[in-house]
């Protein structure tokens, strides 16, 4: 009976991972196919304004207050979300891994100094800091990626530091030191690969957070004015809350499903990469 139960649980778990991967693949497909399916830029007027979904054949999901095709906006918005999410977390990973690895490996005053700086960045309210960076450097995709990386790296640094502090004491690392291997080589070729599973899981979930934060910046009007994003679409739809609520509802659902997909994949990866923790987590 227990075996049946655990089998069902495992299928359910894999089923969630499967759903996550399918959703994520859909978003990637939308981003990649946008220019081919919708040759016109998403901010061009494609039909009469405020057409409800299914009302106007040229725009299956309707048009917004300026007659722009909402479906086209969704496809092009996927590009921005994925680009900003993956790029900002990649930058944050590089920086966070560097800081965390050196702090955890060397310990002592280096660790103390680096961790104080990390804490400093965690003390400033994240979203406020992101807004200020964007406001100061100007709203462009590059600046938004940078600003989200600035608020994301401390979490990675702390995780990597923790892993390094544990792994550093392992016999195989001590062996490398005795064998005369350079610190840099030990850090990057011996310890880092063993610390990567936690970082991978965390970064998947951080991509979701970054995508949500980018959309929030765009929603407030601090996004790149030259691109259509899901956040700007929601911000625009806010003005038609009463008479055309579908305008802000549709991109919101797209955001929700994308974040859900990344979280499902993160959970699935975690079970796959850390099977020992499987019994403790789970849902």
């Amino acid at each position: 009976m227990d075996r049946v139960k655990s089998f069902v649980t495992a299928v359910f778990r894999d089923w969630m991972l499967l759903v996550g991967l399918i959703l994520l693949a859909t978003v990637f497909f939308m981003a990649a196919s946008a220019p081919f399916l919708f040759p016109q830029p998403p901010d061009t007027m494609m039909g009469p304004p405020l057409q409800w979904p299914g009302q106007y054949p040229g725009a299956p999901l309707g048009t917004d207050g300026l007659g722009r095709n909402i479906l086209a906006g969704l496809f092009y918005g996927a590009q921005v979300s994925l680009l900003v999410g993956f790029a900002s977390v990649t930058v944050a990973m590089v920086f966070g891994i560097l800081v965390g690895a050196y702090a955890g490996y060397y310990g002592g005053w280096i660790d103390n100094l680096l961790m104080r700086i990390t804490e400093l960045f965690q003390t400033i309210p994240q979203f406020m800091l992101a807004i200020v960076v964007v406001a100061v450097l100007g709203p462009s995709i590059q600046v938004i990626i940078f600003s989200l990386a600035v608020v994301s790296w401390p979490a990675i640094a702390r995780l990597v530091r923790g892993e390094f502090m544990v792994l550093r004491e392992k016999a195989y690392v001590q062996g490398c030191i005795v064998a005369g291997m350079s610190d840099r080589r030990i850090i990057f070729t011996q310890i880092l690969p063993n610390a990567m599973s936690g970082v991978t899981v965390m970064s998947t979930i951080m991509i979701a957070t970054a995508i949500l934060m980018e959309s929030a910046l765009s929603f407030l009007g601090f996004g790149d004015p030259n691109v259509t994003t899901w956040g700007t679409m929601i911000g625009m739809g806010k003005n038609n809350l009463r008479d055309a609520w579908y305008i802000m509802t549709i991109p919101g659902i797209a955001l929700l499903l994308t974040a859900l997909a990344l979280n499902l994949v993160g959970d699935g990866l975690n079970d796959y990469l850390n099977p020992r923790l499987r019994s403790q987590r789970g849902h």
Partner: protein
Amino acid sequence: MKPIRRRFPWAFLGKRLVYGALAMLAIAIINFFLLKLAPGDAAEALAGQAGTADPEYIAQLRAQFGLDQPLLSQLWAFLTRLATLDLGYSHVFNERVSTLILSRLPATLMLMGAAILIAVIGGIVFGVTAARYANRWPDRAISFVALLLYGTPPYWIGLMMILIFAVWLGWTPTSGMENVLAFHTGWDRVVDIAHHLILPALAQSIFYLAIYIRLVRAGMLEVLSLDFIRVARAKGISERRLAYRHALRNAVLPLVTVVGTNIGNFLGGAVLTETVFSWPGVGRLMFDAMFQRDLNLLLSILVLSSLFVIVANLIVDLLYAIINPTVELK
């Protein structure tokens, strides 16, 4: 059982205060230079609002605000003013900055407090329920909803709530903190504000509710498998009492720490919630300051927010030691 008496951790407090002061200084300096990188300054923005780009007028404005001084003396002036809590004057809002922020603070604190309360209570109730029915349908349902909420954009859920509860159902007001035209006083005013508070507090809490449910659930599952629970169960204590009195106390401890680290994020999220609901708090003020390019005001809000986070974290650390006497404060 008598509570363990312990001395008040003065040494810990002193050390943390010094760290906090140093962190404040570093944050103030970072913010100052960050904002100095901005293209254009308050004088240009003001001149733009007045509909002129006359260089003489801009220079005059600059001298008036001290923007023509060398950078280091500007920083020094900023830091000394900060130390005496004199944050200057906002020419955009025609009000002293400290007065401006203080007048907005109660609204934000109320919103944050309500949101934290909802997230913590909801997290405990749903988390404990999920753990008690682990891997059965109540657990599956709660965990799935938590997973959905975790990925929901908070400002979007706010808009959807306005649409459903205010526009369609008419249960709550759409925005604002109180019905100013009704001139409510006393108890009526409290009820009116509470009525306005429900939606923004809910919207603000959603994301953290999702986190706390997962956290409490995981903590409960761990504690429920321990020996002392088996002993309590053998004594014939009801499952509900077992969960809420025996297990929860131990499972809730990590939650206190997490709430503490989330305080800064609650404050940052207030920018969104307050903008969506026209809630007259610090977050909304920050949004306005950003659009008006009121640099000094912006700077003051950022620095004060960080100060708030530092103090809040210190309180949480002390609180944690009171709840859990096995923690040693160093």
